[in-house]
């Protein structure tokens, strides 16, 4: 079996500005298909800014400028004729704090398919069950699908948010510190889930926990003050970093 991996997303010379603040400086990297890429670095290094550029979330905020090329299967997602709505359909996102809608558990998972035109209740229920199973939440909620999602625990809410993303069948799933607001048990469930997801999806995850990056990712990119310092297989980044700054961070000499 050959090990040539397909490149799912490619970022070239990405620059992001908040007003006049230069938040991401000339970052370039490639995201291989069906793997987990972790983005690590100290707080304020730009990793969240970077990941939000991958599905055009910055479009929603005034005063943010994104320059450079980001491609999905070779197609520039920032090209003029590309609708960001279709991009976000193909590239889903899970946020730092669980953000279920104030609706029932079922309505949360059915939301995505509904807005993309699925009407049949039977079909929506099938999608909801499949997505909730995939997110390892089905057994905990199958008897109370019509209860408010806000009654769930934080960890359950976050898995619901992942199920909600899975329900629209994206190709790439971006996760912005998805476990940082959760306790260790909920965190380990999310990590197991990510390991399972990479069989079918390309996952990019921002994490402030190096242990987490080491446990779950195949590749790791290290950011510092808006610059992409080093990227490579996770094992290499942790055991033989090429850059002095990466080594300093890994060994705990940076915040």
């Amino acid at each position, binding site marked *: 079996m050959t090990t040539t991996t397909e490149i799912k997303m490619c970022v070239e010379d990405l620059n992001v500005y908040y007003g006049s603040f230069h938040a991401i400086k000339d970052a370039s990297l490639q995201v291989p298909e069906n793997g987990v890429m972790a983005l690590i670095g100290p707080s304020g290094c730009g990793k969240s800014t970077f990941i939000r550029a991958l599905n055009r*979330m910055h479009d929603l905020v*005034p005063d943010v400028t994104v320059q450079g090329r980001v491609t999905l299967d070779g197609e520039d997602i920032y090209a003029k004729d590309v609708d960001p709505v279709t991009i976000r359909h193909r590239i889903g996102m899970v*946020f730092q*704090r669980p*953000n279920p809608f104030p609706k029932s558990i079922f309505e949360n998972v059915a*939301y995505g398919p509904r*807005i993309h035109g699925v009407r049949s209740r039977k079909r929506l229920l099938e999608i909801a069950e499949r997505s909730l199973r995939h997110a390892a939440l089905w057994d905990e909620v199958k008897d109370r699908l019509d209860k408010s999602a806000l009654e769930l625990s934080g960890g359950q809410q976050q898995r619901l948010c992942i199920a909600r993303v899975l329900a629209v069948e994206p190709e790439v799933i971006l996760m912005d510190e998805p476990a940082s607001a959760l306790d260790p048990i909920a965190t380990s469930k999310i990590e197991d889930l990510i390991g399972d997801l990479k069989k079918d999806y390309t996952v990019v995850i921002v994490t402030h926990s190096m242990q987490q990056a080491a446990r779950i990712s195949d590749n790791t990119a290290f950011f510092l003050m808006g610059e992409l310092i080093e990227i490579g297989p996770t094992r290499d980044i942790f055991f033989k970093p090429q850059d002095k700054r990466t080594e300093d961070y890994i060994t705990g000499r940076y915040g």
Partner: protein
Amino acid sequence: MATANLAARRRTVNNVMTGVLWAAALSIIVLLAFFVGYILYLGAPVISWHFLTAPPSELAAGGGIGPEIFNSFYILILTLIFTTPIATAGGIYLQEYARPGIFTSAVQFCAESLATIPSIVMGLFGLLVFVTLLHWHFTALGGALTLTILNLPALMRVTQEALQTVPSTFREGSMALGATKWQTIRRVVLPSAIAPLTTGIVLIAGRIFGETAALIFTAGVSVSAGRSAYDFGLFHQAETLSVHLWYVHSEGLVPDAAQVGNGSALVLLVMVLIFNIGARLLGYALHKRLTGK
């Protein structure tokens, strides 16, 4: 020694200020209680089934306020039918779509200016446009349209504030699933804002119900003579309860003007209180239903 004195002084000042602030808060309750009590004392003896349902009288004693109560609700509902769609749409635009720029600033500036225009001026504007220019004379429709202009800015503000209570994470979550902006607003933002929005609309309804100056010259000071007391005619005169209260006291010829006034004031007060309490209860119930218990 000096520090002990200072500590004692700081404690005294703290206690005094706590008392002052508490008294200020208490005075609001006392004021309202006194106000309600006094109007109740004067108005209660006047209230009867006959008073609440009979048509008003021009010259003889014993007139009622039936058509006035009806007109107050009729004009209120007309006004809400006109105001709510425009104001919520405008509020949604300003809160969800508008990016800083000349157009946004212009809309905000106009809304703020409109909000500061005294209602009597708005009433005279209504007189000019609806009564004189369009030759409608005094009409329910003219009154309702005048109140629409008067209340648009406030309702737009209410919409904006209601939308501001919706966490931006809901919007992000929806957009990140590939929803369009409108789908996000329609299916996530508006349902989440429905409780404060409803509360705000009901509170403004209370204000519309009590509005007087803007109606004197637009909806008129009498009810259509000879017609049924419950007159849905858009182009008929439609004196409301608050206008009637003003009218009998200042220009009424009936010998029992004072009693009619006191009774009208009580009914008006009770209605406005119902709107205020209703707004709170409704907001609470909606909030509970939407967020689950």
